[in-house]
């Protein structure tokens, strides 16, 4: 059994008392956080910076989904819809208004308002039905929304999406300093990255606060046994609806960050079913109902998705004289290996990486 030195009280307060509870997990999380903070300097280049930013945005997005699936036990396929609403909010506001901070504020506010209304309506009308029907309703609503966004091409750019400008300091041509810092030019991309980093840290800590509040405990109780929770005095539909709304708002804010980072939005970027599947996979791989799982899962998934093909090119070249191995290791087969990796990870870590590490630390 692993023993832990008590965490300083400010760390405990910052994490709302929800510590990693595993020495290995603590080390992994510290390594990830430090890695993400120094990423622009450690691994310079557009591709690695893009991967790091996507990891950050997915941490917020997946953690918001974990509030719903992991903490409340609600399976929803409409999460990308709220992600898309956030991104389209920024995209539409930035093209219809003068690009700048006002456009960002208006786009974010309108997107949050729309998400709150939609999540409330879906919640109140659908959360009374059985889980499988709720999941089907959310899938139908998300598909309808995606189609609507493609049809409203005058506003959304249709299938092609829309590109837009950001405030000056987030534009690539902007330079904060004339001279490079540690060999890196601090331009608008780097500033966008750090703005997203700060936003994700704040959002994650907020979600940790919610999950560990009395409200969060009610959600966990509902997940375990809704009837029992009703019998001690809690209206489960009310709590589920509030959880859906909170989760939707955080997903919307993740969408806002995605739009800020890409300066482009289209149906495939934020609304696709593929992204929904990715969110589900990351939640399960990281560990449902842990929030920290969103961090570990996003890193594992994004790195695998981005660099697996590169690894396979090397393996394929090294094994070009071995017929079957070379065929299997061909970079075009990367999705096969990615799928296999996920099957194995779920088989060996049914509680997800974080859940398994915590169980191991507890000695269970």
């Amino acid at each position: 059994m692993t023993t832990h030195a008590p965490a300083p009280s400010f760390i405990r307060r910052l994490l709302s008392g929800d510590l990693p509870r595993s020495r290995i997990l603590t080390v992994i999380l510290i390594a990830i956080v430090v890695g993400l903070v120094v990423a622009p300097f450690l691994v310079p280049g557009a591709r690695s910076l893009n991967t790091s930013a996507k990891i950050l945005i997915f941490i917020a997005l997946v953690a918001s989904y974990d509030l719903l699936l992991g903490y409340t036990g609600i399976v929803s396929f409409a999460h990308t819809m709220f992600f898309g609403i956030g991104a389209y909010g920024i995209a539409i506001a930035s093209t219809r208004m003068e690009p700048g901070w006002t456009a960002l504020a208006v786009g974010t506010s309108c997107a949050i308002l729309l998400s709150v209304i939609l999540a409330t309506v879906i919640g109140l009308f659908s959360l009374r039905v059985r889980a499988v029907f709720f999941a089907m309703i959310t899938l139908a609503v998300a598909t309808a929304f995606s189609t609507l966004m493609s049809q409203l091409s005058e506003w959304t750019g249709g299938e092609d999406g829309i590109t837009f400008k950001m405030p000056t300091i987030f534009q690539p041509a902007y330079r904060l300093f004339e001279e490079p810092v540690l060999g890196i030019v601090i331009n608008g991309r780097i500033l966008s990255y750090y703005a997203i980093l700060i936003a994700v840290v704040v959002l994650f800590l907020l979600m940790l606060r919610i999950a560990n509040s009395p409200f969060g405990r009610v959600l966990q109780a509902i997940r375990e046994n809704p009837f029992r929770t009703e019998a001690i005095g809690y209206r489960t539909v009310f709590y589920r609806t509030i959880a859906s709304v909170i989760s939707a708002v955080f997903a919307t804010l993740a969408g806002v960050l995605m739009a800020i980072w890409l300066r482009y939005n289209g149906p495939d970027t934020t609304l696709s079913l593929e992204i929904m599947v990715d969110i589900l996979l990351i939640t399960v791989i990281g560990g449902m109902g842990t929030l920290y799982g969103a961090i570990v899962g996003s890193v594992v998934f994004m790195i695998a998705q981005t660099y697996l093909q590169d690894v396979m090119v090397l393996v394929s070249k090294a094994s070009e004289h071995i017929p079957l191995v070379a065929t299997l290791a061909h970079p075009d087969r990367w999705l096969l290996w990615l799928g296999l990796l996920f099957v194995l990870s779920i088989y060996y870590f049914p509680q997800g990486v974080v859940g398994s590490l915590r169980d191991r630390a507890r000695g269970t």
Partner: protein
Amino acid sequence: MIDKGAPLLALDKVETRIGPYHILHGVDLVVPEGGATMLLGRNGAGKTTTARTVMALWRASAGTVTFGGRDITREDAPTIARLGVGYVPENMGIFSDLTVAENLRLAAISGQLDPKRLEVIFNAFPAMKRFWLGRAGTLSGGQKQMLSIARAIVEPRRLLIIDEPTKGLAPAIIANMIGVFRDLKATGVTILMIEQNFALARAIGDTVAVMEDGRIVHHGGMAELADDDALQRRLLGLSMSAHQ
């Protein structure tokens, strides 16, 4: 002042159907205020369904349920709980992913735990204090049952519905439970308990109702049933004296 004998809970011709099954066939039950009513009967007689119907976890398809003079037949479970009905379900109905402390805080609908009531709980169930920050899922069977009861009494209740609290527990724990239930009775709370353990039923019960095939087939004083071997055999199929 508790008016002993006035009905706190009354079921009048209550019928309950679960899917295609017709479980309760017109249950008439009166639970007097301030005492302990034992609901006895063979497995499958409808005892748990009666408790769940009172809590609105199953809906009564006919008849009325009255609590403290108020018709609660169409109320939902949270409303009934907030009227002062504590429910201890069978099979140790705890939230296993939460800690002991979180389980109790969750049951304190007013928000805060009352230190005096907590002290009473710790005196009755010292294990709750010992495993305060431990996950409820890691407790033993007896401790889980203690937590389930502690959760129901963490705030003042007018009625406690307790479903088979001694199921699967060791005799030493059952003896402790009898003391706890007697202390609870002394505080004036009304208890409706489903129980198969006759020693416990006799030790605690003031009145008794016996169910068979979804109906109440006997209603009377506990002492009356306890002293009548023939009645016990007729109603329950066995004698209490054989289960001391």
